[in-house]
């Protein structure tokens, strides 16, 4: 399973004006890769993910999966649980909760995201981190080959975020899902990514793709980690400088 993204142009109609959001995006993703995308706010990261997920079909270009039927999962910035369903109903959604196989898988997933005992709780009774974990379980139940994540942990506190990053890492390692994660958090991008994509804005383009070869599990305090982080940061600052010169 590999993905080839080639978007020549994606624009939004803003009243009478046409605002270009993405231009000449070329991105090849291999099976089992963990791609992290970072870029300034409004550069089109969410838009790019939606296009890859098939939620937005109004663009010029192609997104090729070598198997078009590839099951895609999506985890949104907000948990987007259905408030009228309990945790287990939210995980199952349109799959039959009564089915023995599905029941078993849900129990397994509830275990993985550490929500035992909350199966019958409503979303209003969950914390932000718990709700996001339900969303992760919900996506994993469908056994996606590709999981797209749009700043899934950005609304969480540092501690919960770290925990969920490790949960995600474990899932990636054990299930060999291809991950595409958008984030604002440089540490997160370096901690998880095997390939780091830096975007810049107006219009959104990929300014650089950096392979990250650090061994897993990564140590944030390690010198090589910090070095990589520094490298990405410099790339970022270069972008900002070029933006500054242009305007």
């Amino acid at each position, binding site marked *: 399973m590999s993905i080839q993204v080639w978007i020549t142009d994606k624009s939004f109609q803003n009243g009478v004006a046409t605002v270009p959001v993405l231009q000449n995006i070329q991105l090849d993703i291999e099976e089992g890769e963990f791609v992290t995308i970072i870029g300034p706010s409004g550069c089109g990261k969410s838009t790019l993910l939606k296009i890859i*997920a*098939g*939620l937005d079909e109004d663009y010029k270009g192609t997104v090729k999966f070598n198997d078009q039927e590839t099951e*895609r*999962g*999506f985890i*949104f910035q*907000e948990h*987007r649980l*259905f*408030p*009228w*369903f309990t945790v287990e109903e939210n995980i199952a*959604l*349109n799959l039959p909760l009564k089915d023995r196989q599905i029941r078993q898988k849900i129990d397994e997933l509830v275990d993985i995201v550490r929500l035992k005992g909350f199966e019958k709780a*409503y*979303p*209003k009774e969950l914390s932000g981190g718990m709700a996001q974990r339900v969303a992760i379980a919900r996506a994993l139940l*469908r056994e996606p080959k590709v999981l797209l994540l749009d700043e899934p942990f950005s609304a969480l506190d540092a501690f919960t975020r770290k925990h969920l990053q490790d949960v995600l890492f474990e899932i990636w390692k054990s299930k060999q899902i291809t991950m595409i994660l958008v984030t604002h958090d440089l540490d997160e991008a370096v901690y998880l990514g095997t390939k780091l994509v830096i975007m810049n804005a107006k219009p959104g383009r990929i300014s650089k793709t950096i392979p990250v070869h650090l061994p897993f599990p990564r140590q944030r305090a390690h010198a090589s980690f910090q070095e990589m982080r520094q490298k990405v940061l410099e790339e970022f600052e270069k972008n900002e400088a070029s933006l500054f010169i242009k305007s």
Partner: protein
Amino acid sequence: MNKTTIVANPPLKRRAWSKIPFQKVEARKWISPLLIPLVILIIWQLFGQFGEVSKTVLPTPFDIATATYKLILSGELVMHLKISTIRALSGFLIGAAAGLIAGIAVGFSTRTEEVLDPTLQMLRTIPHLAVAPLFILWLGFGEASKVLLIAKGAFFPIYVNTFLGIRGVDAKLFDVARIFHFNTWQKIKLLIFPSALPNVLLGIRLSLGAAWLSLVVAELMGSTEGIGYMMMDARQFSNTDIVFVGIILFALGGKVTDSFVRLLEKWLLRWQDTYKGTM
């Protein structure tokens, strides 16, 4: 000073609160809504007894109670109440069902909305009293014209709210439905219907209220039985106490049906996370 006490107190307060026996809390819940009516009743009774007010203007609560008792004994009350309830209920069922269907049809399709909604909105603004004579002309003084009038009253609240509820579904949840390949029926069952339910229930509540109001109009317009008739008849003979009995029955009927729907809401919408009024 105030702030520090507020910060320091809550755990203590809560513990003290939970020590109050369950029955007392329960009792408070029952007594609170009765407090104001009770005070009014007492003042009213005293005023009637010691003031110089004629009974045909303002009978005392005691007079009204006596009149109620007599009406129950003679069987009139039950008879009138039964016929009124049947009218209100059948009118409500017809109007609410039609309103629900129309609301769903318009909610699901902009085409239907364009065709149907403007006409319905126009009809909505016509007052009951204005169409009642027409209904009577067409259908006579029988049950049909009354039920139709009540149905008209019940139709609009549920129509408007169902429509609103369906259009108010969070578009972000539709993205979720798409990612997980919901089919049309799953979208309706798992997403649109539950999301619209709070509005639909509100519509039902308002429709019930409207049905009662329409019942009064229908029965006062002309009938030979029913609570409205009982009141009209009493007014002609200056039996003001019976007029009051009618008013109270309408109030109680409205309250009982409303409480029933609220109970239903509490159960069906237990997932809702809203302000409970405990500041």
